[in-house]
């Protein structure tokens, strides 16, 4: 499930601004911030589902950008780098949440309960068909993050594994179950495992 539209990180940034930012030019750094604040904040909101955490992630991401942009070589994409920094800051937030499945101590093999419902209320009745937005809100942190990073941001399982400190097969199995859960939320009562 690869994203069919460019992520909002596909912001064109000219190389002069990047060069100036690398030299510590405050106006250029602010221009970068203006270009990426909405995509970074949006991604952080999607991953953490918290305005407060998303604001922290935005700040921490740009502190990191200011600290490290002089090391940015310009061969990879700047947007790709900033997005990765943002993801790792957001994952750090989630890891600090109590009871989060991202906590290091939890086994990789999560129970279905871990995937089932997030903090946003009980299961929908079979009659209630929720939209994708609502359904995403009902997933657990781990399920939502894996879906978002894979389906929307287009990261591979290897990349997700590296960012989350898990294995690729963890990412893969979480995605399959998260998809099943999401489809169940979106079309309750439709048989998931058909015929033979």
């Amino acid at each position: 499930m690869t994203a069919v539209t460019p992520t909002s990180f596909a912001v064109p940034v000219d190389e002069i601004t990047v060069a100036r930012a690398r030299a510590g030019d405050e106006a250029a750094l602010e221009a970068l911030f203006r270009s990426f604040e909405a995509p970074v904040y949006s991604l952080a909101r999607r991953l953490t589902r918290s305005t407060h955490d998303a604001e922290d992630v935005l700040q921490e991401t740009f502190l990191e950008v200011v600290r490290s942009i002089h090391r940015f070589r310009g061969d990879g994409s700047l947007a790709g780098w900033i997005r990765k920094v943002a993801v790792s800051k957001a994952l750090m937030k989630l890891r600090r949440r109590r009871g989060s499945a991202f906590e290091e101590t939890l086994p990789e093999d999560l129970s279905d309960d871990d995937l089932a419902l997030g903090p946003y209320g009980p299961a929908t009745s079979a009659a209630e068909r929720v939209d994708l937005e609502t359904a995403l809100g009902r997933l657990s942190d781990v399920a939502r993050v894996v879906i978002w990073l894979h389906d929307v941001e287009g990261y591979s399982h290897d990349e997700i594994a590296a960012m989350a400190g898990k294995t690729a097969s963890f990412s893969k199995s979480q995605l399959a179950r998260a998809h099943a859960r999401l489809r169940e939320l979106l079309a309750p009562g439709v048989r998931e495992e058909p015929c033979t």
Partner: protein
Amino acid sequence: MNCRDLVARLDDFVDGTLSAADRGAVALHLEICPSCREAEARVRALAAGAAMLPRAIEPAHDLWPDIVARIQGDTVTQGRFGAVRHPRWHRRGALAAAAAALVVVSSVVTTLMVARRDAATGPSGPGRAGTAAGVTAATLELSQARGSYEAARRQLLAVLETRRSSLSPATLKVLDENVRIIDDAVRQMEDALARDPGNQELPSLLVTAYRQEIDMLQRAAGLPARG
């Protein structure tokens, strides 16, 4: 391959990451199994829906001053940040006009989103009556958003045209590519809507795509000139 095997491979199949042999087996099974075809369609619909979710959420307040304050108290960045200062770039008249058009687009979209939500949760109740009301609101929203979108898009493209020579080839390449991708997506959704006018999802997906394109063009129009 049975249905259980197929379901296990569906994500990878849609992803295009299956081995050639598995891909062939899945395709073969899909040919003969209507319920797996339906499952496949739902996986693809989910992917398309996820890809079109609105992603441009703006923070409620400006965080840059806080960041500057933190940078100034930060030993790692001290001395490097603010090494060069010069006046900000300012917007041109044309950009201001395009920005005004955008405000219209986004307020129309917001108003209609709210209207639509109200219509959806209003007293019309579930079942066919509610569905019919939803279609009308969504269709109305779409036709108004489309008008604003086309005007804003034309204006922003004109602004960009006058700025082409001041933007780097790399920037232009990314920009042109993105415009093409979003235009393609819009065209596909318009076609799909023409084939299925009662579809409940497509109008809001289209409005989202409009918004994404305008958002991107606006950012591009506001980019500093090179050198």
